[in-house]
C-alpha cells in the first residue's frame, strides 16, 4: 500500500467528476487528495487524484477509469520523475509582539508568503509538496491555526513526457 498519483484527462462535461470519484468510492478507496481544473485543451479537464492502495488495486481502478466514456487518458505518475505541488492557505493567530515576528520568520524559511495581515491573524500562502505543507502546519500549530485550507496535489511528468490525448 502506497500513495499513487493518477493524472486523468477527461471531457469537460457535467457529471464527469462524479463518475470518476464514484469508481473509487465503490471500491472502498479513500481519495487522499483531488484537484480538478481546465487544461491545455479547451474542452477537456485534468484531474489529479492521490489514492492509497496496492499496485493491483490501483491498476484495476485505472482500467475501470479507462472504461468511462468521458475519460480520455489515465496515467499513474507514481513511478516516474515528476513534479508535484499543492498550495495551502493557513490562517494563524498572530498577536502583536513576538509571535508575529516568529511566524514571519518561519514563513520566510518555508518561502511562504503573507497574503493577509489582520489585527489578530496572519494568512500564509505556501506552495510545495505534501510533506512541506504538513511540516509548516505542524510548526504553526503552537501559535494557533484558526483555519487551514489546501488544494489537492497537482502533478506533471518531468522532461518531454506528457499525459495528453495524443492527438
Amino acid at each position, binding site marked *: 500500500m502506497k500513495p499513487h498519483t493518477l493524472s486523468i484527462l477527461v471531457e469537460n462535461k457535467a*457529471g464527469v467528476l*462524479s463518475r470518476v470519484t*464514484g469508481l473509487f468510492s*465503490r471500491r472502498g478507496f479513500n481519495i487522499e487528495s483531488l484537484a480538478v481544473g481546465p487544461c491545455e485543451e479547451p474542452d477537456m479537464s485534468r484531474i489529479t487524484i492521490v489514492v492509497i492502495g496496492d499496485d*493491483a488495486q490501483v491498476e*484495476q481502478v485505472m*482500467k475501470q477509469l479507462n472504461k468511462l*466514456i468521458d475519460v480520455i487518458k489515465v496515467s499513474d505518475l507514481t513511478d516516474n520523475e515528476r513534479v508535484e505541488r499543492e498550495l495551502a492557505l493557513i490562517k494563524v493567530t498572530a498577536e502583536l509582539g513576538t509571535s508575529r515576528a516568529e511566524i514571519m520568520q518561519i514563513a520566510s524559511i518555508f518561502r511562504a508568503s503573507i497574503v493577509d495581515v489582520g489585527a489578530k491573524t496572519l494568512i500564509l500562502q505556501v506552495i510545495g509538496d505534501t510533506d512541506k505543507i504538513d511540516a509548516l502546519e505542524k510548526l504553526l500549530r503552537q501559535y494557533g491555526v484558526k483555519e487551514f485550507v489546501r488544494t489537492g496535489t497537482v502533478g506533471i511528468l518531468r522532461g518531454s513526457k506528457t499525459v495528453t*490525448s495524443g492527438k
Partner: protein
Amino acid sequence: MKTGAKILVESLQREGTEIIFGYPGGVVLPIYDELYDSSLRHILVRHEQAAAHAADGYARASGRVGVCLATSGPGACNLVTGIATAYMDSVPIVALTGQVPTNLLGNDAFQESDITGITMPVTKHNYLLKDAGDVSRVIKEAFYIAGTGRPGPVLVDIPKDVSTTSVKDVPVPEQVHLRGYNPTYSGHKRQIEKALQLIMAAERPVIYAGGGVILSNASAELIRIATELGIPVTTTLMGLGCIPCDHPLNLGMLGMHGTEYANFAITECDVLFAIGVRFDDRVTGKTETFAPHAKIIHIDIDPAEIGKNKRVDVPIVGDTKTVLTDMLACMKKKGIHDAWIKKIKHWKQHHPLKCPDDGCLHPQYIIRQMSELLKGDAVIVSEVGQNQMWAAQHFCFRHPRTWITSGGLGTMGYGLPAAMGAHFARPDVPVFDVAGDGSIQMNIQEFGTIAHYNIPVKVAILNNRYLGMVRQWQELFYDRRYSYTELPSVEFVKIANAYGIEGIKVESPDDVMPALKAAIECDGPFVLDFRIEREENVFPMVPAGAAINEMIGGHSR
C-alpha cells in the same frame, strides 16, 4: 422544425428499433403522443422492471439493442434492477426515461429522481439531455455505446421540455466519434502466436468459454478451434449453447453447480484457455485452487477483466470472434490430446449428472423431458435459484442465444419478462420460462402482458413451496433451520385463468410430457404448475469458498 419527441422516435427508427417495452406517465406524454401514430411497436408492460427485462431478453435472443421506456421518478427507479441485470451480463439495451422539465431539475419536483445519478454505477454510460437539438446525436451515441465493445446498458434521461421544444432538424452525424471510447477488436498478433504455442505444447488443455463467446457470435469459431486442436470445452452459465451439449468435446457447465468432470478437468489441466469469461466467484470457488497447475490464456474485449481475479500468463485484449478467427488463420497443424480426452471420457462415464428415478416428480426429469420434446429448437429463459440451475444442468442446449438467464446479478423475477422480450426476437420458436414458485411471484403481474398481447410464453413453474435455493443452503449449512423460506401453496393455474391464460397442474411424472405437449400446442401463453419434490437439492455443489473439485452431492463424495 420538429419536437424533441418526434426527433427521438425518428432516431429510434433510424437505429432499426422495431419494438419498445414501456409504461407511460406524466413527463413522457409527449413521447407517447408521438408513438401513437408511429410504426414503432410498443408493448405495454405491467411494471417498469419488466420493461427493462423484456428489452434485455429481446437483446440477448436477437443480438440487437433492446429498448425500454419509462416515466420519471418511480418509473425510472423501477427500471434500475433491470438495468443492473443487463449491466452485469453485458447486455446492450437503451433505457429511455422521462424527466421533469429542465427548469425544475433538482427542485424535488413531482416524480423527480436523479436517475442518471442513480444508474451511474450500473450503466455503461448515461445522458441527461438538456437540448432538443442534441436528441438525434445522443440516441445515435447511446446505441453505438450499448452495442459495441463490451456491450451494456445506456440510459438517456429526457426532460419534458426537451420532448416538447421544437428545433430545426439537425443533420445526424454519420459516424459516432467519442475520443474516450475506442474498444479494441483485434488481438495482438504476437500474443495470439504465444497462445497457440502454449496450447500446442499442452498435454491437458481445457477451454473455459463464457458469455463473451455468445455476445460476439463466435460459437462457430470456438467449435472449430476446439475440434481442430482437440481441446475439451467447459462453459459458464452464460456460455451455455456456444457448443452443442452433446458435442463429444463438451464438458457442460463448470463451477458451483457444474459437472464433476468439468471441475476435475479444470483442476488437472495444464493450459487453461479462457474465452470471454470473467473468473466469477461462482465459477472459480477458491481462486488459489482454480486451475492450480495451468498456464492461463485469456481473451476478453474488456481489459479490466484480464487479471482481475486470477493472474493470467497470456492476456489477449480483443473481440472473441476476431481473435479466434485470427488464431484459426495462424494454426499450422492439428492438436491431439488422446490420453487426456480418454481420461475425461472416463470421468464423464463415472460422474454423470444425477436424475432420480423413483416415481416421484423430480425437477431434473421435467427439464430432461422438456429437452427431449424441444430438441434445442427453443429459447429457454429462467428465473433465479434452483430452477435456473436445474435448467442449466439438464436442458440440452444446441445453439447460442437459446439460453437466457440472469447470471451476474441473479435477479429473481427476470424470467417471465425476459421471455416476453425473447419471443419478439424469436417468434419462430417456442419460448419457455423455467420458474420457481418464489421467482415467478416477483413479476407475476406480467401474466397481464402475455395475456394482453397473446405472447405465447410457456411458464413452467417448478413449484416446491420453498425459496428452494436458500432452503438448500439452510439445509446444508444452517442446520435445517428454514428461516423464512417456506411459502404457502399457490394455485398458479387459477391465477393464470383469471388473466385468461390456460394452464395445467402436474403432480406425477407420467403427466409431464402430455402437459408439455399441451403447452406447445396452445397458440397463446400457457402456465404449467409442476408440484415437485419439495426438498430436492441442486447437486453437485461446491460449498462457498471451497476448491471446485471438492464437490458435495456428486459421485465422489
